[in-house]
């Protein structure tokens, strides 16, 4: 039982990171209809900005986290303002290609500024642990879970109770009706990009604070978070969080019981589990667990 709970905790921590990244995907998709393939690049950028604030500028880690999220949000909103605003009304495919372009621009940009070397982010968590109920909890993992829960709660409160959140929901539901009501689609799109970039940055700095440190390949996790978004439903923020947690738990538990239950299927079953889950759930629910089913008039 201890092993199972320990694996569940690992899965929750991993799933929280997936949830943050997947939520970023969903925020942009929901408001603009575009899948942002640059989410991994924004994650890496946020992590490196966090490194600069924490190590080079020596600000307190909590402040560094806040600053890196704000800086990434500014980058996201600026990109939307300068590049994507010109693409309003253009086919989503063209915009998706631009996000792919941004990903390819960010990678060399990051290495040009920060180099390729392995870096360690100064942070108060490191590999510290606390023990309770016979289980060992990594402090960074606890913070990852806690911060994700707080951010998700803030996110839903923002959408539910603020005028900008309402504007974003209305624009996502019917852009033309929103425009007719005087809602600024530009403001909504810029806000979406800022939120998505900030979420990516938070995921990035939380990952970089771990023992693996920081390398330019940190953004690859976005690929693993992609099934979480699909599984949860591409237009559902709650689905993204749920999908992230399911994928994280499934991966960690499969890995934990690899030797006992899955050795017949090879050595790395946990790697394919997210994709298997995605396929199975899409076969049953083509719009994901909490995605909106498209209504068609016949």
């Amino acid at each position: 039982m201890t092993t199972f709970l320990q694996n569940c905790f690992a899965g929750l921590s991993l799933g929280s990171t997936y949830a943050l990244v997947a939520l970023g995907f969903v925020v942009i998709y929901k408001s603009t209809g575009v899948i942002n393939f640059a989410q991994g690049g924004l994650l890496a950028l946020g992590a490196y900005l966090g490194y600069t604030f924490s190590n080079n500028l020596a600000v307190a880690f909590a402040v560094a986290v806040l600053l890196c999220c704000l800086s990434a949000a500014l980058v996201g909103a600026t990109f939307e303002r300068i590049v994507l605003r010109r693409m309003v009304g253009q086919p989503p495919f063209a915009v998706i290609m631009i996000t792919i372009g941004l990903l390819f621009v960010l990678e060399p940009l990051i290495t040009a500024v920060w180099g390729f070397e392995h870096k360690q982010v100064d942070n108060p968590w490191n590999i510290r642990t606390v023990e309770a109920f016979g289980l060992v909890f990594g402090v960074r993992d606890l913070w990852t879970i806690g911060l994700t829960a707080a951010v998700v709660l803030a996110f839903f409160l923002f959408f539910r109770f603020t005028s900008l959140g309402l504007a974003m929901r209305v624009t996502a539901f019917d852009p033309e009706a929103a425009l007719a009501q005087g809602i600024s689609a530009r403001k909504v799109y810029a806000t979406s990009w800022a939120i998505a970039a900030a979420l990516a940055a938070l995921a990035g700095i939380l990952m970089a604070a771990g023992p693996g440190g920081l390398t330019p390949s940190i953004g690859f996790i976005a690929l693993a978070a992609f099934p979480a978004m699909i599984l949860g439903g591409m237009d559902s923020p709650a689905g993204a969080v749920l999908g992230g947690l399911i994928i994280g738990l499934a991966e960690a538990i499969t890995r934990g019981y690899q030797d006992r239950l899955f050795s017949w299927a090879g050595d790395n079953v946990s790697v394919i589990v997210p994709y298997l889950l995605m396929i199975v759930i899409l076969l049953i629910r083509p719009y994901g667990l909490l995605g909106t089913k498209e209504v068609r008039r016949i």
Partner: protein
Amino acid sequence: MVRTKRWTAVSALAATALLVAACGGAGDDGGSGGGQAGEPATTAGFDGTTIKLGVLSPLSGPVAVIGQPLTSGNKVWFDHINSQGGIAGKYRVELVQEDTQYKPDVTVQQYNKVKGDVVAFTQILGTAPTLAVLPLLQSDEMIAAPASLDAFWVREPNLLPIGAPYQIQSINAMDHYLSEGGGTTDSTICTMIQDDVYGEAGQEGIDFAAKEYGFEVANTQRFKVGTENYAGQIGALAGAGCEMVFLTATPTDAGKIWGTAAQAKFTPKWYAQSPSFVSALAKSAVAPYMRQYVTIAAEGTEWGDESVPGMKDMIDRVEQYAPNQEPDYYFAFGYNQARAMTALLEKAVELGDLSHAGLLRASEELGTVSFDGLTGDYTYGPADTRNPPRSTTLFSVDPSKPFGLATLKYDFTSEAAKKFEFQKADA
């Protein structure tokens, strides 16, 4: 009509001539022949004064963290050689660098782009990129120095490897654990390996040692590069009661693995293959755990150890030609690669033939090349009889050292390592 037919014929002839010229293009030796001992004739990559060497390395992308210092090592050595007048004291060396991004397909493209302009490749970084260009090397009679320690390079005539292969590192590490590290054949010995060729090379050495010393590998955990959470694997190793774990990984994964082990209070004796370590780990939060439980199997000596002649020379040359170069294991590897290539070029000049085929012939006559203690001496010659070094140096993690490693046991060879036989990749 007659005019049209004549033009068609002329066009066809011109096209044929172009085609013939193109076929004799990049891959052709283009040598003018007539070279003599000590005075090789001009050929592809050699204009009579300058020898051009190819470098196919990931200079961008995640593996550039290895490719850049490695290439810097190549450069510093050849800067030193050029300052002495060049190969055989008269032929300067120029490097032609191309970025492979560590992608086999890009490596093949870059190889084809420059193969007609170089006499050989002094670096091709990585197992997969090297395997991708190997058939081309064979058909072009080209020789290249692979920047990886895979054992199956030893028997490839078109490759000029250096260093003791990964299998030797793991065999010697096991020997140390069983003879001086507190282990016995009854100890619970486990492995944790990347699920790729590099990981399998380490595992092959451990399996060989298991037969030689009579122990069993109690548990093996395989992982994919870039895994984010290692709680499952560490839990399985702890559950199996592993007293010693041999690790083949790259630094980012190794950091996460040791961090997870430290958090889980899993404290076996770890031995890790050389690419698992990077100096940043010695400054990380995992360093105290690594200092206590981790031993790194590599070659040569610690950075700055001037008791080893090769290290003293290398440090002097770094100060002269690359003063901003940080202490780096891969830099030393690139530096040694360039030394091996220099020995080959000297032999080819001596035989009077710097053509691709000439270098291949020279490699068969190349004897033992010494690296002055930076890595083990390598006995070259015909690929079937080559004998790579069988020695390993064990390091402990010490943040106060320039590269974060302190010599634990310098340059030793186990009896089991001497018995290991190297096979060709397809054998």
